[in-house]
C-alpha cells in the first residue's frame, strides 16, 4: 500500500524522466535574469554617477569652503560637508564600538542559550535593526535634545539653550543607537568563528574566563570587529533622516568646533542640491560631484568590509 502511494506521488511530481525539460530551462533562465537585472541596476547607478561625477571632481571642489550661495558651480566646494560627516561618524564610533562589542561578547561568551533574557536581548537587537531611520531622528529629538539636553542646560544654568538644541553630539548619539545592531551582529559572527579549542587551551593553562576573552578571543576576532565598525561607519555616513532634526545645518559659515555646534553634511547636501536648486541644469555638475564624494566615502568602506567579511565567513565554513 505504502509503496504504491509513494510511487504515484513520484509520478505526479514528474520526477522520472531526465529528458530536456523546457519548464526547468525556462524558469532557471528567469531566476538568472532576475539576478542579472539586479546587477544591471547596480551597474547603471554606479556607472552613471562615476561617468558624470568624475570629470567634475576637482581638488578645488573638495578643498573649498563655499560662500553662502553654494549653488554657484564656480566657487562652491564640499570641504565643510566632508568634515561634518567625518566628525559625526567618528564621534558615533567612540560610543557604538565599546557598547556593541561588549554586548556581542555577552551574547556569545556568557549568555545562557535558553534563558528568556538572552532571547529578549536578541529580539531587541533585531528590532533596533528594523526601526525606520526617521523614527531614530524623532527619538534623538525627543530624548537627547528635549530631555537630556534641556535638563543639562538647566543643571548647568546656561542662559540660553546650549545643549537643548540640535548639535553634533546628539546626531552622533542618535546614529550610534541606530548602528548598534550592525556592530553587534558582525562582532558576534567573528566571535563564533573562533575555535572552541583556543578558549579551552587558554582556560586549561589557568587563565580566567575574562583573561581568555581579553587576551585570546578578542584579538582573534579583531578583523570581524573591524568589519562591524566599518559597516556601521559606512551605513551612518550615508544616512540623512536621523540627523535632519538632531544636528544638520543648511549652511554654516564656519566649521564646527565644539560638540554643541551644528554641522553641514554630505548626504544632506545631496538632498539640498537635488531638491532646492534654483537651476538644476546649472548645478548638475556639482550635484554629481557631491554624490560621487559621498559614494566614495561610503562605498569604499563598504567594499573593504565585504572583503573582510567574506574572509571571515570562509574561515567559519572551513571550521564548521
Amino acid at each position: 500500500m505504502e509503496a504504491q502511494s509513494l510511487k504515484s506521488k513520484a509520478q505526479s511530481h514528474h520526477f522520472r524522466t531526465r529528458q530536456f525539460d523546457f519548464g526547468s530551462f525556462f524558469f532557471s533562465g528567469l531566476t538568472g535574469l532576475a539576478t542579472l537585472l539586479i546587477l544591471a541596476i547596480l551597474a547603471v547607478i554606479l556607472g552613471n554617477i562615476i561617468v558624470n561625477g568624475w570629470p567634475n571632481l576637482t581638488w578645488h571642489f573638495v578643498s573649498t569652503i563655499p560662500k553662502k550661495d553654494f549653488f554657484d558651480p564656480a566657487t562652491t566646494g564640499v570641504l565643510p560637508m566632508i568634515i561634518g560627516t567625518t566628525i559625526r561618524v567618528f564621534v558615533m564610533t567612540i560610543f557604538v564600538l565599546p557598547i556593541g562589542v561588549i554586548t556581542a561578547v555577552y551574547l556569545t561568551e556568557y549568555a545562557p542559550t535558553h534563558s528568556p533574557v538572552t532571547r529578549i536581548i536578541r529580539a531587541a537587537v533585531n528590532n533596533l535593526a528594523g526601526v525606520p531611520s526617521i523614527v531614530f531622528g524623532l527619538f534623538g529629538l525627543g530624548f537627547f535634545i528635549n530631555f537630556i539636553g534641556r535638563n543639562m542646560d538647566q543643571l548647568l544654568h546656561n542662559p540660553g539653550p546650549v545643549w537643548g538644541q540640535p548639535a553634533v553630539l546628539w546626531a552622533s548619539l542618535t546614529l550610534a543607537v541606530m548602528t548598534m545592531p550592525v556592530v553587534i551582529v558582525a562582532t558576534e559572527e567573528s566571535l563564533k568563528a573562533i575555535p572552541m579549542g583556543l578558549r579551552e587551551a587558554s582556560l586549561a593553562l589557568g587563565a580566567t574566563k575574562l583573561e581568555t576573552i581579553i587576551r585570546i578571543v578578542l584579538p582573534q576576532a579583531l578583523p570581524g570587529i573591524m568589519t562591524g565598525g566599518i559597516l556601521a561607519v559606512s551605513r551612518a555616513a550615508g544616512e540623512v533622516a536621523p540627523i535632519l532634526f538632531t544636528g544638520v545645518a543648511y549652511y554654516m559659515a564656519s566649521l564646527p568646533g565644539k560638540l554643541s555646534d551644528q554641522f553641514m553634511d554630505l548626504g544632506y547636501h545631496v538632498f539640498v542640491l537635488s531638491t532646492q536648486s534654483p537651476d538644476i541644469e546649472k548645478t548638475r555638475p556639482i550635484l554629481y560631484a557631491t554624490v560621487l564624494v559621498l559614494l566614495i566615502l561610503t562605498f569604499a568602506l563598504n567594499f573593504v568590509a565585504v572583503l573582510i567579511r567574506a574572509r571571515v565567513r570562509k574561515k567559519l565554513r572551513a571550521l564548521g
Partner: protein
Amino acid sequence: MGIHRGHKARPLEWLAEKFIFLVSLSTILTVFLIFVFVAREALPIFLGKENSALIKPVIPPADMDKLKPEELRAYLRLSEKQFQAMDRETKLDLMLVKQEAQDEIPERLRNDPDAKLNTTEWGAMLKPRQWAGYDKPEYIWQPIGQVHKYNIIPLIVGSFKVTLIGLLFAVPLAVGAAIYISQLARPRVREVVKPVIEMLSGIPSVVIGFFALLIMATVLQNVFGYETRLNAFVAGIALSFSVIPLVFSISEDALTSVPRSYTQAALALGASRWQTAWQIVMPAALPGVFAAVVLGFGRAIGETMIVLMVCSASVMSWSIFDSARSITTTIAAEMAEAVSGGHHYRILFMLGAILFAVTFISNMIGDLVMHRLKNKLEGKR
C-alpha cells in the same frame, strides 16, 4: 557557547561579568526608550488633551479669582512647575494675551464651523469632512493656514501605495535571484555575485533618491507616458532598490539553510535542478521567504529620503501614477516648521509612534518565523 566555571571566588571577574551583562541590557533599554520618548511627545494627542481649534472659549481676566488653581492652570496650558513659579501678575497678563489673541481673529472666521473644530480629535484625523469651500467631504492633510487640517488617511494610503509598488517590484526579483544564487549557480559565480548584490545595500538612500529624481523619473515617463513626472510609481521602483538587498539576503539565507540531504535525495530521484529548487527546497524554505517579505515591508514603509525626494505632494488618490505623501516624508518635511510642543509637532510624533508600532510588529513576525524555520530545519525544537 562558553565554558561555565565558578566565578564567586574571583570578585573582580564577577564584577566584570555583571558589567558586561548590564551593558548588553542597554539594547533592551534603548528599544524601550525609543518607544517611551516618541510616544511621550505624542501623548496629548493619544489622550485627546490637545486642542487645535482656532476659536476657544475665553475667560475674562476679571474672573480669574473665581477659578480654582487647577482650572486656571489647564486654561493657561502651563505645567505644574511653571504654574508654581509664576506670580499673580504674570498669570493675569497671560489671560489678557489670550483674550487679545481671540479678539484678533477676523470676523469672517467667527461663524466658520471649521474654526471651532478641534482637528486633533480622532474623528477629524480619520474621517472625511466637508471643509468650507469644498463641495463634498474629503480627506485632507494640510497643516498650514488658519485651520490646520490633520487627516492622516492620505498619508497612510500614500505610504501603503509606495510600499506596495516597491514590494511588487522587489520581491520577485530578489527571491528569483536568491533561488538562482543559492540553488542553481555554480559556486564560483555565487562567490562573486552574492557580495556584489549585497553591495547594493551600501548605496545611501539619498543617492538612490537623487538617481530616481534626476534619471529614472524622466526615463520612466518617456516609457510609460504618464502625466505627473514625479509620482508614486517612480518612488516605488526607487524604493525597491533599497528593499532588494534585504529580501535577497534573508531569502538566500533561508534557502541555503535547507539541509543538503533534501536536494541530494531529489536529484537522486531524477529531478532536474529547477524541479529540486522549486518543489523541494522552496517549500521547505517558504517561511523564510515570507519572513524576508515581511521584513522588506518594514524597511520599505520606514524609508524616508527616497520618497521625500521623489514625490511628496499630499493627494488622496489610489492611482499609482499620482503623487503620494508617505508618513515618513511628512515627518521629515514638516518637523522643521512645526513649533516645538505645538499640535503639529505632536501629531508628527504620533505618526512616528504609529510607524514604530507597525515596523515593530512586522519585525517581530519576521524574526519569529525565521527563528522557527531555522530550528525546524536544524532538527531542534
